[in-house]
């Protein structure tokens, strides 16, 4: 294995980890406030569709992103209505949202574009392109042979760190931001408290309902960014049916793996993103270890690891205490 392979692998790890990370942080806000969110998948899917659809129709990727956020927020509102206002079962609401998204995106895509449930191919300007960071080289202007001759550090910086969509860098910023909000602001303290002991928060005269709706709303925005990264950030060029392909659930797994903490979430998503990147390169194991690893094993690995974590063999994962329980003010 040469450096080119390593760099390509890490590059695609960053790209695949980004939607996972954004969805994972979305789940973190929601679950830390005591609202389980199985519907990450559905919100990503709707945002992926709407952002691609509106980017294609209006020609502006930013307008697309805005509509994606709006669509995701509508689903968040439904989830909030069901699980906060009407004290319904949060898990069932999440399941319903995922199906709603899976069905509606295809039905509407077929009606709008008649291309079998996809959006038209997005051209330049209709999607987020790679950003060349200061000091980095735009590798698109280099041939493979020329790239090979560059100094290793320069190649690493230019390919792995630089050249991603704005959403990738945004996701990287959201991690410390989430940490700061959760652990250094009043809002964060209350948010965590409402997930552990809502009655105490209520007694202090703070609205449990408002806090939880805020958390669910933040989750909606983050899910929308995750969906947009899938559909309208290079090299993606539009929406295809079921394009989230279980990423919402992998994000959920990463959240448990990270034990509901922001920086470990980054680590978990990079790890799971690395698995996904490896899955696309089954040849690597053969050349490296002369071993045929079935790609199915790699795709199942995040789930298997999460089950092991859940089993408590590698440190226990303890969820927020009030998670999944609707809050009843008075009995």
């Amino acid at each position: 294995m040469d450096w080119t392979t390593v760099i390509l692998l890490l590059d695609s790890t960053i790209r695949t980890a980004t939607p996972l990370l954004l969805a994972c942080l979305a789940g973190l806000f929601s679950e830390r406030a005591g609202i389980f969110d199985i519907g990450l998948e559905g919100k990503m899917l709707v945002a992926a569709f709407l952002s691609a659809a509106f980017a294609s129709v209006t020609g502006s990727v930013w307008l697309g992103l805005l509509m994606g956020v709006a669509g995701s927020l509508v689903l968040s509102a439904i989830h909030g209505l069901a699980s906060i206002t009407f004290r319904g079962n949060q898990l069932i609401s999440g399941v319903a949202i995922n199906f709603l998204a899976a069905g509606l995106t295809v039905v509407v895509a077929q009606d709008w574009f008649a291309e079998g449930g996809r959006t038209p191919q997005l051209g330049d300007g209709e999607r987020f392109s790679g950003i060349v960071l200061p000091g980095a080289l735009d590798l698109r202007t280099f041939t493979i042979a020329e790239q090979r001759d560059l100094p290793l550090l320069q190649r690493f910086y230019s390919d792995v760190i630089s050249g991603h969509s704005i959403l990738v860098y945004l996701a990287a910023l959201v991690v410390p931001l989430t940490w700061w909000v959760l652990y250094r602001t009043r809002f964060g303290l209350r948010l965590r408290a409402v997930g552990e002991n809502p009655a105490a928060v209520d007694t202090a005269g703070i609205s449990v309902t408002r806090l939880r709706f805020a958390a669910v709303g933040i989750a909606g925005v983050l899910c929308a960014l995750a969906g947009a990264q899938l559909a309208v950030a290079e090299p993606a060029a539009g929406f295809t049916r079921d394009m989230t392909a279980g990423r919402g659930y992998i994000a959920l797994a990463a959240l448990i793996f990270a034990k509901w903490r922001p920086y470990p979430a980054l680590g978990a998503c990079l790890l799971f993103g690395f698995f996904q990147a490896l899955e696309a390169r089954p040849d690597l194991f053969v050349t490296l270890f002369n071993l045929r690893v079935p790609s199915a094993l790699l795709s199942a690995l995040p789930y298997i690891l999460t089950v092991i974590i859940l089993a408590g063999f590698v440190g226990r994962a303890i969820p927020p205490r009030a998670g999944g329980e609707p809050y009843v003010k008075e009995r």
Partner: protein
Amino acid sequence: MDKMPRWADILLVPLISLILAAAISALVILAIGENPWNALKIMVTGALGSTYAWGYTLYYATNFIFTGLAVALANHARLFNIGAEGQAAIGGLGVALVALYLPWPHWTLALLGATAAAALFGAAWAAIPAFLQAKRGSHIVITTIMFNFIAAALLNYLLVGPLKPSGTMETATAPFPPSTHLPSFQDMFSTADTPLFRGTPANVTFFVAVLLCVLVWLLIWKTRLGYEIRAFGFSEGAARYAGIGATKIIMVTMLISGGLAGLMAINNTMGEAERLILNAVEGAGFIGIAVALMGRSHPLGVFLAAILFGFLYQGGAELSLWTSIPREMVVVIQALVIMFTGALDNMVRMPLERLFARRTRSTPLAPPGPTLHPPGRMAPPSTPAAE
């Protein structure tokens, strides 16, 4: 204290939920420029209008009875089995192994063997999540979701590799031998001059499903184990105090639930495809959630809800054939049914309760009772006898 008469709880609430779901579906159909009334007519003719239509409707319904019963039984212990999808897939693996590698002289014996294998494999797939919930307190919803994906990956591996006969392109096992083929409705009910159910997949498994409805009903309401399951579902603490072991109930309930889900494979794999294909379950495990919610976790309710969803499935297929409404419309309807009967139940229930409270005038307007659901568990299915 009863807030509502029993008929309102059993009939009115699901009916209103269903009407709400149907109304929104009609709006969606209107929005994409089709006529909802016309769509309904196509669905009714296409799913109920002939024995051919019924042959498909009942085939789908059979799948949903199995998964619906699986979810419903777990509900009684307040366990949310979201893993019927994976359990049914692994059940298919059990059926395939038994049908392919054991010699069967007659389909009746093959059916017995496949039933045992499907139930065993399905139960085994539910065993680890059940054990982790019982012993480690791991959230059963999360673990069963994870096991759905692991099952998909496992079958993907097996059907691309070891189980695929060499020289074929399809991701499927070899066809099962003819001696394992189950009689279809066409074989059973057609006569020489009146062919019925021609070419449809409905088969003898439907009657197995009906039998299971009865057995599950007996289990839940006529046996000691069923009593323990329901008691555990109502109050874990009280059940424990009465000497009912949590570990045992969680394990046994989930094993039976997984077995029921696994049994779906005798319908779709042995009865219809006659070989194991990739993605054979096609979401039926998740529809089981809608069916169980709609049917209030009662076997009779599950049976009726499964027929309803069978109708939706076959009707949806006809819709996509005759109109520009894609098949995925069914997924939208399914989502709305789950949303209204499951998550937004209180939205329908609370105004109704207030209405009935005002009409009887016996009790002042009381705030609706709290419904506290511990994580990973659902509200107990409404059993009129309790409370």
